[in-house]
């Protein structure tokens, strides 16, 4: 089988301007900083970023925002990154970010649907709110639900704790977050990992993401402070 282990620069070299990219993590915890750094270095522009939040300036997705690489941000919360607010309303079209807010549970489920071949799902979340605007409402078993559609991306950048050379991943603590569903919902998946292990080193019962989803493995991730 092909060797998936690469440098960060090699791994992100496939990402072009205008790409859609899912990034794992929650407030930076569980985000692959080394892959973000390589993406800043590569300086591709007009990206659509799908991530729980916008990180903070200088951390996680926040680095891409500060560097002006993000055109569209699909997230559940961007409040801890004031730079996003500025760019949402800025005059320069080149620096402006369009921000699409999605309830966190709906975001996770839309990504899961994208990765598991579902055409959509019915959720009670958002009924009667502005989240429902433009969406089909279905009445099932006496209750209203929004029809939410699947979400996929060209790329996913994951953050693993231990990854074997086939790409099987485990995540420690609360670094798991969106990484697990994103692994299935992107055409090309890159994992930045703290440790690269021999194939077979992870108990098959405890593999959290299968290596079949993973295209590239990059070592050197750390346990970052937030």
């Amino acid at each position: 089988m092909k060797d998936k282990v690469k440098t960060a620069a090699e791994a992100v070299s496939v990402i072009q301007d205008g790409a859609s990219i899912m990034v794992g993590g929650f407030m930076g915890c569980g985000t692959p900083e080394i892959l973000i750094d390589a993406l800043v270095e590569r300086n591709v522009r007009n990206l659509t970023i799908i991530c729980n939040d916008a990180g903070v300036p200088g951390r996680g997705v926040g680095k891409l925002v500060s560097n002006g690489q993000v055109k569209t941000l699909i997230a559940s919360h961007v409040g801890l990154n004031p730079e996003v607010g500025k760019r949402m309303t800025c005059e320069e079209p080149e620096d402006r970010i369009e921000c699409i807010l999605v309830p966190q549970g709906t975001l996770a489920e839309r990504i899961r649907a994208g990765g598991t071949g579902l055409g959509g799902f019915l959720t009670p979340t958002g009924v009667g709110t502005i989240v429902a605007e433009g969406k089909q409402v279905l009445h099932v078993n006496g209750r209203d639900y929004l029809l939410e559609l699947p979400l996929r991306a060209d790329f996913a950048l994951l953050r693993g704790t231990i990854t074997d050379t086939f790409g099987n991943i485990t995540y420690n603590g609360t670094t798991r977050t969106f990484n697990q569903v994103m692994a299935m919902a992107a055409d090309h998946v890159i994992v930045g990992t703290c440790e690269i292990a021999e194939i077979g080193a992870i108990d098959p019962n405890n593999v959290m993401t299968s290596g079949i989803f993973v295209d590239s493995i990059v070592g050197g991730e750390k346990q970052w402070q937030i």
Partner: protein
Amino acid sequence: MADIKEIIARRVAKELKDGDVVNLGIGLPTMVANFLPEDVHIVLQSENGIMGMGPAAEPGKEDVDIINAGAQYVTVLPGAQFFDSATSFGVIRGGHVDATILGALQVDKHGNLANWIVPGKMVPGMGGAMDLVVGAKKVIIAMQHTQKGAHKILDECTLPYTAINVVDMIITEMGVMEVTPDGLVLTEIHPDFTLDQVQEATECKLIVSPDLKPMK
């Protein structure tokens, strides 16, 4: 009057039963865990992926891989579980969280909740709030009764909804209100306030419970 936040948090704590699975919002709700009776052990859920969250980590002893939804380093208790975001919101939306406690910008007599958009200000995003209030078995709003004198408990919310018909109970420094099909029923009143004062601080007409008790 004692610290307003503490009054509220102490009263909210009495709503929780031994074994309850509870999600606490950021800020005041987090204080609730400090006022539980000795024999009440709740299971704290954090929507970023913890069942069985413990207290904040001691400085210098943080595990940077373990944060809560407010991005603070926390601990986990024996018997905890870590999980991913889809599972986390499956638990929440599926009705497996017994109670969620969070603040509000506005609540109205129908149990509608507005707590995420202030017009003219940057919209930070709803995070997990919309899922939590729709999914949790019991939604308790813990907040100050008014905002600099302005009503927060209304006939109809004027700010964009977080969700409709979801609030079960409102606990403020003035009293305890339950949402019923007929409107808000005041079930407890804090001894520092009169009925008139509570009604004046509330836009919608309060139904006073025939069994009104002092709030402790």
